[in-house]
Protein backbone atom coordinates (compact mmCIF):
# COMPACT_ATOMS: atom_id res chain seq x y z
CA UNK A 1 0.00 0.00 0.00
CA UNK A 2 1.64 3.19 -1.10
CA UNK A 3 1.33 6.50 0.68
CA UNK A 4 -0.48 8.06 -2.23
CA UNK A 5 -3.49 5.75 -1.85
CA UNK A 6 -6.52 7.77 -0.94
CA UNK A 7 -9.07 6.25 1.38
CA UNK A 8 -12.64 7.36 1.40
CA UNK A 9 -13.94 7.85 4.92
CA UNK A 10 -17.31 9.13 6.07
CA UNK A 11 -17.39 10.97 9.36
CA UNK A 12 -20.80 12.15 10.61
CA UNK A 13 -22.19 11.70 7.08
CA UNK A 14 -19.48 13.90 5.58
CA UNK A 15 -17.26 12.03 3.14
CA UNK A 16 -13.63 12.97 2.73
CA UNK A 17 -10.66 11.40 1.01
CA UNK A 18 -7.52 11.13 3.04
CA UNK A 19 -4.18 9.40 2.47
CA UNK A 20 -3.79 5.91 3.92
CA UNK A 21 -2.34 5.91 7.40
CA UNK A 22 -4.19 9.03 8.51
CA UNK A 23 -5.87 8.71 11.86
CA UNK A 24 -9.61 9.18 12.18
CA UNK A 25 -8.98 12.26 14.35
CA UNK A 26 -6.85 13.94 11.71
CA UNK A 27 -9.37 13.09 9.00
CA UNK A 28 -12.09 14.68 11.14
CA UNK A 29 -9.92 17.73 11.71
CA UNK A 30 -9.65 18.11 7.95
CA UNK A 31 -13.42 18.45 7.86
CA UNK A 32 -13.21 20.72 10.86
CA UNK A 33 -15.88 22.23 13.02
CA UNK A 34 -17.80 20.13 15.48
CA UNK A 35 -17.01 16.92 13.66
CA UNK A 36 -13.47 16.94 15.03
CA UNK A 37 -13.42 15.04 18.32
CA UNK A 38 -11.86 16.84 21.29
CA UNK A 39 -8.40 15.68 22.29
CA UNK A 40 -6.75 16.20 25.65
CA UNK A 41 -3.61 14.16 25.14
CA UNK A 42 -3.09 13.91 21.38
CA UNK A 43 -0.84 16.62 19.96
CA UNK A 44 -0.14 16.54 16.26
CA UNK A 45 3.32 18.04 16.72
CA UNK A 46 4.44 15.44 19.23
CA UNK A 47 5.28 12.00 17.97
CA UNK A 48 3.73 9.16 19.90
CA UNK A 49 1.23 11.32 21.76
CA UNK A 50 -2.37 10.24 22.10
CA UNK A 51 -4.29 7.26 23.33
CA UNK A 52 -4.27 8.26 26.99
CA UNK A 53 -7.22 10.49 27.75
CA UNK A 54 -10.02 8.72 25.78
CA UNK A 55 -11.92 11.95 25.08
CA UNK A 56 -11.60 11.43 21.33
CA UNK A 57 -13.67 8.22 21.36
CA UNK A 58 -15.72 7.64 18.21
CA UNK A 59 -18.03 4.93 17.00
CA UNK A 60 -17.03 3.06 13.86
CA UNK A 61 -20.34 1.91 12.36
CA UNK A 62 -18.71 0.32 9.32
CA UNK A 63 -15.19 -1.01 9.45
CA UNK A 64 -14.29 -0.76 5.77
CA UNK A 65 -15.52 -1.56 2.31
CA UNK A 66 -14.07 -5.08 2.47
CA UNK A 67 -15.17 -5.82 6.02
CA UNK A 68 -18.31 -3.77 6.68
CA UNK A 69 -18.82 -5.07 10.23
CA UNK A 70 -18.90 -2.26 12.82
CA UNK A 71 -16.18 -2.21 15.42
CA UNK A 72 -17.52 -3.76 18.62
CA UNK A 73 -16.43 -0.96 20.94
CA UNK A 74 -15.84 2.75 20.70
CA UNK A 75 -12.31 3.45 19.50
CA UNK A 76 -9.85 6.22 20.27
CA UNK A 77 -9.82 8.24 17.07
CA UNK A 78 -6.30 9.56 17.60
CA UNK A 79 -4.90 6.02 17.44
CA UNK A 80 -7.18 4.43 14.84
CA UNK A 81 -6.15 4.79 11.22
CA UNK A 82 -8.78 5.08 8.52
CA UNK A 83 -9.77 2.24 6.21
CA UNK A 84 -11.29 2.58 2.77
CA UNK A 85 -15.04 3.07 3.05
CA UNK A 86 -14.98 3.46 6.80
CA UNK A 87 -17.99 5.10 8.39
CA UNK A 88 -17.44 6.93 11.63
CA UNK A 89 -19.97 8.51 13.93
CA UNK A 90 -18.83 11.21 16.26
CA UNK A 91 -21.44 13.72 17.39
CA UNK A 92 -24.22 11.86 15.61
CA UNK A 93 -23.77 8.88 17.88
CA UNK A 94 -25.50 8.86 21.26
CA UNK A 95 -23.10 6.19 22.47
CA UNK A 96 -20.13 8.49 21.84
CA UNK A 97 -21.70 11.48 23.58
CA UNK A 98 -22.57 9.32 26.54
CA UNK A 99 -19.10 7.77 26.74
CA UNK A 100 -17.44 11.15 26.42
CA UNK A 101 -19.55 12.53 29.25
CA UNK A 102 -18.29 9.67 31.36
CA UNK A 103 -14.69 10.30 30.35
CA UNK A 104 -14.97 13.98 31.24
CA UNK A 105 -16.38 13.11 34.61
CA UNK A 106 -13.58 10.63 35.23
CA UNK A 107 -10.96 13.21 34.24
CA UNK A 108 -12.51 15.58 36.74
CA UNK A 109 -12.56 13.07 39.60
CA UNK A 110 -9.10 14.00 40.79
CA UNK A 111 -8.92 17.40 39.17
CA UNK A 112 -9.45 20.11 41.76
CA UNK A 113 -12.23 22.53 40.87
CA UNK A 114 -10.07 25.52 41.76
CA UNK A 115 -10.56 27.39 38.49
CA UNK A 116 -10.93 30.74 40.33
CA UNK A 117 -7.34 30.39 41.48
CA UNK A 118 -5.91 28.62 38.44
CA UNK A 119 -4.07 30.71 35.86
CA UNK A 120 -5.19 28.43 33.05
CA UNK A 121 -8.86 29.29 33.52
CA UNK A 122 -10.28 30.80 30.37
CA UNK A 123 -7.95 28.89 28.07
CA UNK A 124 -8.15 25.49 29.73
CA UNK A 125 -9.14 22.61 27.48
CA UNK A 126 -10.52 20.60 30.37
CA UNK A 127 -12.66 23.54 31.46
CA UNK A 128 -14.02 23.94 27.93
CA UNK A 129 -14.59 20.23 27.61
CA UNK A 130 -16.46 19.91 30.89
CA UNK A 131 -18.69 22.90 30.19
CA UNK A 132 -19.39 21.63 26.68
CA UNK A 133 -20.57 18.38 28.18
CA UNK A 134 -22.42 19.97 31.07
CA UNK A 135 -20.18 18.28 33.60
CA UNK A 136 -18.77 21.35 35.30
CA UNK A 137 -20.10 20.22 38.66
CA UNK A 138 -18.93 17.18 40.54
CA UNK A 139 -20.56 14.15 42.12
CA UNK A 140 -17.35 13.04 43.75
CA UNK A 141 -17.53 13.17 47.53
CA UNK A 142 -14.18 11.77 48.54
CA UNK A 143 -10.74 13.18 49.15
CA UNK A 144 -9.02 14.05 45.89
CA UNK A 145 -5.47 12.89 45.39
CA UNK A 146 -2.82 15.28 46.66
CA UNK A 147 0.92 15.43 46.15
CA UNK A 148 3.96 16.74 47.86
CA UNK A 149 4.82 20.07 46.27
CA UNK A 150 7.82 20.06 43.97
CA UNK A 151 9.70 23.17 43.03
CA UNK A 152 10.75 22.65 39.42
CA UNK A 153 12.70 25.81 38.81
CA UNK A 154 12.23 29.55 38.66
CA UNK A 155 10.10 29.69 35.53
CA UNK A 156 7.65 26.83 35.63
CA UNK A 157 5.08 26.16 38.32
CA UNK A 158 3.94 22.58 38.68
CA UNK A 159 0.54 21.84 40.21
CA UNK A 160 0.47 18.09 40.26
CA UNK A 161 -3.10 17.94 41.62
CA UNK A 162 -4.38 19.46 38.39
CA UNK A 163 -2.50 17.05 36.12
CA UNK A 164 -4.52 14.64 33.98
CA UNK A 165 -1.46 12.59 32.99
CA UNK A 166 -1.67 13.29 29.27
CA UNK A 167 2.13 12.85 28.87
CA UNK A 168 2.31 15.80 26.47
CA UNK A 169 4.96 17.59 28.51
CA UNK A 170 7.02 14.43 28.71
CA UNK A 171 6.97 14.04 24.93
CA UNK A 172 7.77 17.72 24.50
CA UNK A 173 10.81 17.44 26.72
CA UNK A 174 11.83 14.24 24.99
CA UNK A 175 11.52 15.48 21.45
CA UNK A 176 12.43 19.16 21.79
CA UNK A 177 15.27 19.08 24.23
CA UNK A 178 18.43 17.03 24.30
CA UNK A 179 17.95 15.57 27.67
CA UNK A 180 14.65 14.98 29.37
CA UNK A 181 14.80 15.68 33.06
CA UNK A 182 11.27 15.06 34.09
CA UNK A 183 8.96 12.16 33.61
CA UNK A 184 6.16 10.28 35.22
CA UNK A 185 7.04 8.54 38.43
CA UNK A 186 5.04 5.77 40.09
CA UNK A 187 1.97 4.07 38.77
CA UNK A 188 -1.81 4.30 38.86
CA UNK A 189 -3.23 6.75 41.34
CA UNK A 190 0.22 7.71 42.55
CA UNK A 191 1.55 8.54 39.09
CA UNK A 192 2.96 12.05 38.99
CA UNK A 193 5.03 14.33 36.83
CA UNK A 194 8.28 15.02 38.59
CA UNK A 195 11.89 15.75 37.97
CA UNK A 196 13.92 12.96 39.40
CA UNK A 197 15.39 14.13 42.73
CA UNK A 198 13.70 17.52 42.30
CA UNK A 199 16.18 18.64 39.71
CA UNK A 200 15.27 21.89 38.11
CA UNK A 201 14.53 21.77 34.44
CA UNK A 202 16.86 24.01 32.56
CA UNK A 203 16.72 23.75 28.84
CA UNK A 204 16.24 26.42 26.24
CA UNK A 205 12.95 25.03 25.05
CA UNK A 206 11.50 23.59 28.23
CA UNK A 207 9.05 26.50 28.54
CA UNK A 208 6.97 24.90 25.82
CA UNK A 209 5.62 22.39 28.33
CA UNK A 210 3.47 25.27 29.63
CA UNK A 211 1.83 25.66 26.25
CA UNK A 212 1.25 21.98 25.61
CA UNK A 213 -0.31 21.36 29.01
CA UNK A 214 -4.07 21.11 28.41
CA UNK A 215 -4.84 22.00 32.05
CA UNK A 216 -3.23 24.28 34.61
CA UNK A 217 -0.72 21.75 35.87
CA UNK A 218 2.22 23.54 34.28
CA UNK A 219 1.95 27.30 34.34
CA UNK A 220 4.21 30.27 33.80
CA UNK A 221 5.71 31.44 37.11
CA UNK A 222 6.54 34.87 35.70
CA UNK A 223 2.84 35.36 34.95
CA UNK A 224 1.50 33.57 38.01
CA UNK A 225 -1.52 35.29 39.59
CA UNK A 226 -0.76 38.58 37.87
CA UNK A 227 -3.82 38.81 35.73
CA UNK A 228 -6.59 36.77 34.18
CA UNK A 229 -6.19 35.87 30.53
CA UNK A 230 -9.47 37.46 29.57
CA UNK A 231 -8.36 40.90 30.74
CA UNK A 232 -5.29 40.73 28.54
CA UNK A 233 -5.13 41.49 24.88
CA UNK A 234 -3.32 38.97 22.71
CA UNK A 235 -1.08 40.47 20.05
CA UNK A 236 0.97 38.71 17.42
CA UNK A 237 4.57 39.78 17.62
CA UNK A 238 8.00 38.59 16.59
CA UNK A 239 11.62 39.29 17.31
CA UNK A 240 14.90 38.26 15.82
CA UNK A 241 15.72 35.32 18.05
CA UNK A 242 18.91 33.32 17.47
CA UNK A 243 17.52 30.12 19.00
CA UNK A 244 13.89 29.95 17.91
CA UNK A 245 11.53 31.30 15.28
CA UNK A 246 10.68 34.26 17.53
CA UNK A 247 7.03 34.21 16.48
CA UNK A 248 4.94 34.63 19.61
CA UNK A 249 1.72 35.96 21.05
CA UNK A 250 2.09 38.78 23.55
CA UNK A 251 -0.56 39.16 26.22
CA UNK A 252 -0.77 42.87 26.92
CA UNK A 253 -2.54 45.10 29.34
CA UNK A 254 -2.06 48.60 28.08
CA UNK A 255 1.57 48.66 26.99
CA UNK A 256 2.66 46.15 29.61
CA UNK A 257 3.57 42.66 28.38
CA UNK A 258 2.24 40.29 31.00
CA UNK A 259 2.91 37.04 29.26
CA UNK A 260 4.53 35.63 26.16
CA UNK A 261 3.24 32.39 24.67
CA UNK A 262 3.62 30.55 21.43
CA UNK A 263 0.93 31.09 18.83
CA UNK A 264 -1.78 28.50 19.01
CA UNK A 265 -3.82 27.23 16.10
CA UNK A 266 -7.51 26.40 16.07
CA UNK A 267 -6.90 23.07 17.81
CA UNK A 268 -5.03 24.76 20.62
CA UNK A 269 -1.68 23.45 19.43
CA UNK A 270 1.37 25.66 19.14
CA UNK A 271 2.40 26.74 15.66
CA UNK A 272 6.08 27.31 16.44
CA UNK A 273 8.00 26.29 19.51
CA UNK A 274 9.58 29.24 21.24
CA UNK A 275 12.63 29.43 23.46
CA UNK A 276 12.81 30.34 27.12
CA UNK A 277 14.46 33.68 26.48
CA UNK A 278 11.53 34.80 24.35
CA UNK A 279 9.00 33.42 26.79
CA UNK A 280 10.33 34.49 30.16
CA UNK A 281 12.78 37.31 29.70
CA UNK A 282 11.44 39.59 27.02
CA UNK A 283 8.69 41.37 28.94
CA UNK A 284 8.98 44.78 27.36
CA UNK A 285 7.07 46.02 24.36
CA UNK A 286 10.29 47.45 22.97
CA UNK A 287 11.71 43.92 22.67
CA UNK A 288 9.09 43.00 20.10
CA UNK A 289 7.85 43.96 16.69
CA UNK A 290 4.08 43.92 17.00
CA UNK A 291 2.26 42.58 13.97
CA UNK A 292 -1.31 43.09 15.08
CA UNK A 293 -4.04 41.74 17.28
CA UNK A 294 -4.39 37.99 17.40
CA UNK A 295 -7.66 36.55 16.20
CA UNK A 296 -9.43 34.87 19.09
CA UNK A 297 -12.48 32.68 18.74
CA UNK A 298 -15.58 34.79 19.24
CA UNK A 299 -16.96 32.30 21.74
CA UNK A 300 -13.89 32.39 23.93
CA UNK A 301 -13.98 34.44 27.10
CA UNK A 302 -10.65 35.92 26.02
CA UNK A 303 -12.40 37.86 23.29
CA UNK A 304 -14.65 39.68 25.76
CA UNK A 305 -13.93 43.35 26.19
CA UNK A 306 -11.89 43.69 23.02
CA UNK A 307 -14.21 46.24 21.51
CA UNK A 308 -11.76 47.39 18.92
CA UNK A 309 -8.71 45.60 17.77
CA UNK A 310 -9.80 42.33 16.24
CA UNK A 311 -8.37 41.91 12.82
CA UNK A 312 -10.38 44.01 10.41
CA UNK A 313 -11.68 46.53 12.94
CA UNK A 314 -10.11 49.87 13.72
CA UNK A 315 -10.11 52.05 16.81
CA UNK A 316 -12.44 55.00 16.17
CA UNK A 317 -10.64 58.32 15.86
CA UNK A 318 -11.15 60.90 18.57
CA UNK A 319 -13.07 63.86 17.17
CA UNK A 320 -13.28 66.02 20.31
CA UNK A 321 -10.22 68.12 19.63
CA UNK A 322 -11.17 68.72 16.01
CA UNK A 323 -14.67 69.88 16.89
CA UNK A 324 -13.53 72.13 19.76
CA UNK A 325 -10.77 73.94 17.85
CA UNK A 326 -7.95 71.97 19.38
CA UNK A 327 -9.14 72.14 22.99
CA UNK A 328 -8.58 69.03 25.09
CA UNK A 329 -11.61 67.64 26.94
CA UNK A 330 -11.91 68.85 30.54
CA UNK A 331 -11.56 65.81 32.72
CA UNK A 332 -13.57 66.04 35.91
CA UNK A 333 -11.56 63.19 37.37
CA UNK A 334 -8.59 61.27 36.08
CA UNK A 335 -9.10 57.74 37.31
CA UNK A 336 -5.35 57.09 37.39
CA UNK A 337 -4.87 59.76 40.08
CA UNK A 338 -7.44 58.15 42.32
CA UNK A 339 -7.26 54.44 41.63
CA UNK A 340 -4.75 52.25 43.41
CA UNK A 341 -4.91 49.57 40.74
CA UNK A 342 -2.40 49.53 37.92
CA UNK A 343 -0.07 52.12 39.44
CA UNK A 344 2.55 53.35 37.03
CA UNK A 345 5.46 52.80 39.42
CA UNK A 346 4.49 49.21 40.22
CA UNK A 347 5.15 47.22 37.07
CA UNK A 348 3.79 43.80 37.95
CA UNK A 349 4.65 42.50 34.50
CA UNK A 350 8.35 43.04 35.13
CA UNK A 351 8.41 41.00 38.33
CA UNK A 352 9.96 37.59 37.77
CA UNK A 353 7.75 35.97 40.41
CA UNK A 354 4.16 36.35 41.50
CA UNK A 355 3.30 39.57 43.29
CA UNK A 356 3.29 39.40 47.08
CA UNK A 357 1.96 41.62 49.83
CA UNK A 358 5.44 43.13 50.03
CA UNK A 359 4.96 44.60 46.56
CA UNK A 360 1.93 46.55 47.69
CA UNK A 361 3.21 48.37 50.77
CA UNK A 362 0.89 51.19 51.85
CA UNK A 363 3.49 53.96 51.51
CA UNK A 364 3.86 53.17 47.84
CA UNK A 365 0.33 54.22 47.07
Amino acid at each position, binding site marked *: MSDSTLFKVTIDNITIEVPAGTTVLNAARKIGGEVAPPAMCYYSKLEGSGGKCRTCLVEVSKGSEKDPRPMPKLVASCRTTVMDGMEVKNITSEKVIDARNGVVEFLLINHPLDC*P*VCDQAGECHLQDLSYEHGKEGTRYEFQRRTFKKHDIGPYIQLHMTRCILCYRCVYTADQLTNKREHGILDRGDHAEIATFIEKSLDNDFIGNVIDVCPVGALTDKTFRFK*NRVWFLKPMDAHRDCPTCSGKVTLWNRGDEVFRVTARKDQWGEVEDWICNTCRFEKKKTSDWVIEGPRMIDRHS*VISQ*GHYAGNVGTTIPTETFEKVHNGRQPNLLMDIHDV*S*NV*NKQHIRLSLLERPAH*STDFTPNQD
Partner: protein
Amino acid sequence: MQALTSRGKEVSRKPMSFMERLYIPSILKGMAITFSHIFKKQPTIHYPEQKREFSPVFRGLHVLNRDEEGRERCTACGLCAVACPAEAITMEGAERLEGEENKYREEKYAAKYEINMLRCIFCGLCEEACPKDAIYLSETFAPANFTRKGFIYGKEDLLIPDPITAPEEFAKARGAHRNN
Protein backbone atom coordinates in the same frame (compact mmCIF):
# COMPACT_ATOMS: atom_id res chain seq x y z
CA MET B 1 -61.78 66.50 13.92
CA GLN B 2 -62.07 63.01 15.20
CA ALA B 3 -61.64 62.72 18.96
CA LEU B 4 -58.51 60.93 20.08
CA THR B 5 -60.22 59.33 23.07
CA SER B 6 -63.75 58.72 24.19
CA ARG B 7 -63.02 60.45 27.51
CA GLY B 8 -62.86 64.00 26.12
CA LYS B 9 -65.21 66.45 27.80
CA GLU B 10 -66.53 69.60 26.34
CA VAL B 11 -65.64 72.77 28.27
CA SER B 12 -68.66 74.23 29.97
CA ARG B 13 -69.17 77.92 29.19
CA LYS B 14 -72.26 78.34 31.34
CA PRO B 15 -72.23 81.33 33.74
CA MET B 16 -71.77 80.35 37.42
CA SER B 17 -74.87 79.98 39.54
CA PHE B 18 -75.44 81.98 42.77
CA MET B 19 -74.21 79.17 45.01
CA GLU B 20 -71.10 78.83 43.00
CA ARG B 21 -70.45 82.54 43.14
CA LEU B 22 -70.63 82.48 46.94
CA TYR B 23 -67.44 80.23 46.95
CA ILE B 24 -67.90 79.38 50.66
CA PRO B 25 -69.57 75.98 50.15
CA SER B 26 -66.74 74.94 47.84
CA ILE B 27 -64.11 76.11 50.33
CA LEU B 28 -65.82 74.19 53.14
CA LYS B 29 -65.99 71.11 50.96
CA GLY B 30 -62.28 71.36 50.25
CA MET B 31 -61.38 71.92 53.91
CA ALA B 32 -63.46 68.89 54.89
CA ILE B 33 -61.32 66.74 52.64
CA THR B 34 -58.15 68.29 54.06
CA PHE B 35 -59.11 67.78 57.71
CA SER B 36 -60.37 64.28 57.12
CA HIS B 37 -56.75 63.32 56.36
CA ILE B 38 -55.79 63.96 60.00
CA PHE B 39 -57.58 60.78 60.93
CA LYS B 40 -56.19 58.68 58.11
CA LYS B 41 -53.07 56.50 58.21
CA GLN B 42 -49.89 58.42 57.34
CA PRO B 43 -48.10 57.16 54.28
CA THR B 44 -44.83 58.89 55.25
CA ILE B 45 -42.32 58.22 58.03
CA HIS B 46 -40.00 60.51 60.00
CA TYR B 47 -36.95 59.49 58.04
CA PRO B 48 -33.76 59.90 60.05
CA GLU B 49 -35.41 58.67 63.28
CA GLN B 50 -37.46 55.98 61.61
CA LYS B 51 -36.16 53.86 58.79
CA ARG B 52 -38.07 51.65 56.43
CA GLU B 53 -37.00 48.07 56.16
CA PHE B 54 -35.37 47.18 52.87
CA SER B 55 -36.86 44.52 50.73
CA PRO B 56 -34.92 41.25 50.94
CA VAL B 57 -33.78 41.67 47.35
CA PHE B 58 -32.45 45.19 47.87
CA ARG B 59 -29.01 45.69 46.35
CA GLY B 60 -26.90 48.35 48.03
CA LEU B 61 -23.26 48.97 48.71
CA HIS B 62 -20.85 46.09 48.10
CA VAL B 63 -19.20 44.17 50.90
CA LEU B 64 -16.15 41.95 50.56
CA ASN B 65 -16.85 38.96 52.71
CA ARG B 66 -14.66 37.05 55.16
CA ASP B 67 -15.07 33.45 56.21
CA GLU B 68 -15.87 32.34 59.76
CA GLU B 69 -12.17 32.46 60.67
CA GLY B 70 -11.89 36.04 59.49
CA ARG B 71 -9.92 35.30 56.34
CA GLU B 72 -10.66 37.16 53.12
CA ARG B 73 -12.61 35.00 50.73
CA CYS B 74 -11.77 36.83 47.51
CA THR B 75 -9.23 35.10 45.28
CA ALA B 76 -9.10 37.78 42.59
CA CYS B 77 -10.49 35.39 40.00
CA GLY B 78 -11.88 38.33 38.02
CA LEU B 79 -15.31 36.84 37.40
CA CYS B 80 -17.06 39.81 39.03
CA ALA B 81 -15.09 42.18 36.86
CA VAL B 82 -15.88 40.22 33.72
CA ALA B 83 -19.56 39.99 34.65
CA CYS B 84 -19.82 43.70 35.48
CA PRO B 85 -21.79 45.42 32.71
CA ALA B 86 -20.61 48.84 33.83
CA GLU B 87 -16.95 47.80 34.10
CA ALA B 88 -16.74 49.25 37.58
CA ILE B 89 -14.56 46.58 39.18
CA THR B 90 -10.80 46.31 38.92
CA MET B 91 -8.37 44.25 40.92
CA GLU B 92 -4.83 43.04 41.21
CA GLY B 93 -4.04 39.56 42.43
CA ALA B 94 -1.11 38.44 44.56
CA GLU B 95 0.28 35.24 46.00
CA ARG B 96 -0.14 34.53 49.68
CA LEU B 97 3.17 34.41 51.52
CA GLU B 98 3.96 31.98 54.29
CA GLY B 99 2.56 33.30 57.54
CA GLU B 100 -0.38 35.00 55.87
CA GLU B 101 -2.62 31.94 56.05
CA ASN B 102 -4.74 33.59 58.73
CA LYS B 103 -5.42 36.58 56.49
CA TYR B 104 -6.29 35.01 53.16
CA ARG B 105 -8.31 31.90 52.53
CA GLU B 106 -6.58 30.68 49.38
CA GLU B 107 -3.08 30.92 48.00
CA LYS B 108 -4.16 33.70 45.68
CA TYR B 109 -5.90 36.82 46.91
CA ALA B 110 -6.81 40.31 45.79
CA ALA B 111 -4.07 42.69 46.84
CA LYS B 112 -6.04 45.55 45.35
CA TYR B 113 -9.77 45.56 44.80
CA GLU B 114 -11.61 48.61 43.63
CA ILE B 115 -15.18 49.43 42.75
CA ASN B 116 -15.96 52.68 41.04
CA MET B 117 -19.33 53.60 42.55
CA LEU B 118 -19.78 56.27 39.91
CA ARG B 119 -19.94 53.54 37.32
CA CYS B 120 -21.68 50.86 39.36
CA ILE B 121 -25.33 50.33 38.54
CA PHE B 122 -26.00 47.98 41.51
CA CYS B 123 -27.24 45.20 39.29
CA GLY B 124 -25.81 42.47 41.53
CA LEU B 125 -24.20 40.49 38.69
CA CYS B 126 -20.88 40.50 40.59
CA GLU B 127 -22.60 38.80 43.50
CA GLU B 128 -24.06 36.22 41.14
CA ALA B 129 -20.77 35.60 39.36
CA CYS B 130 -18.67 35.15 42.51
CA PRO B 131 -17.71 31.48 42.93
CA LYS B 132 -16.30 32.09 46.40
CA ASP B 133 -19.23 33.91 48.04
CA ALA B 134 -16.79 36.76 48.52
CA ILE B 135 -18.79 39.75 47.35
CA TYR B 136 -22.37 40.64 48.06
CA LEU B 137 -24.51 43.73 47.96
CA SER B 138 -25.56 44.96 51.38
CA GLU B 139 -28.55 46.89 52.65
CA THR B 140 -26.95 50.31 52.67
CA PHE B 141 -26.82 53.08 50.13
CA ALA B 142 -23.57 54.47 48.83
CA PRO B 143 -23.32 57.64 50.93
CA ALA B 144 -23.12 61.03 49.27
CA ASN B 145 -19.77 62.68 48.85
CA PHE B 146 -18.45 66.10 47.90
CA THR B 147 -15.82 64.85 45.47
CA ARG B 148 -15.79 62.24 42.75
CA LYS B 149 -12.68 60.77 44.33
CA GLY B 150 -14.74 59.63 47.29
CA PHE B 151 -16.65 57.19 45.13
CA ILE B 152 -13.66 55.03 44.26
CA TYR B 153 -13.99 52.38 46.93
CA GLY B 154 -10.86 50.44 47.76
CA LYS B 155 -10.48 47.22 49.69
CA GLU B 156 -10.34 49.02 53.05
CA ASP B 157 -13.78 50.53 52.36
CA LEU B 158 -15.36 47.34 51.11
CA LEU B 159 -13.98 44.68 53.43
CA ILE B 160 -16.34 43.46 56.12
CA PRO B 161 -15.10 43.81 59.76
CA ASP B 162 -13.37 40.76 61.18
CA PRO B 163 -15.95 38.41 62.78
CA ILE B 164 -13.49 37.39 65.51
CA THR B 165 -12.08 40.73 66.64
CA ALA B 166 -15.18 42.80 65.90
CA PRO B 167 -18.22 40.49 65.95
CA GLU B 168 -20.76 43.28 66.46
CA GLU B 169 -19.64 45.34 63.48
CA PHE B 170 -19.46 42.15 61.47
CA ALA B 171 -23.08 41.27 62.28
CA LYS B 172 -24.16 44.82 61.48
CA ALA B 173 -22.34 44.82 58.16
CA ARG B 174 -23.80 41.47 57.23
CA GLY B 175 -27.28 42.92 57.44
CA ALA B 176 -30.48 41.73 59.06
CA HIS B 177 -31.71 39.12 56.62
CA ARG B 178 -28.32 37.42 56.28
CA ASN B 179 -27.96 37.00 60.04
CA ASN B 180 -31.30 35.23 60.40
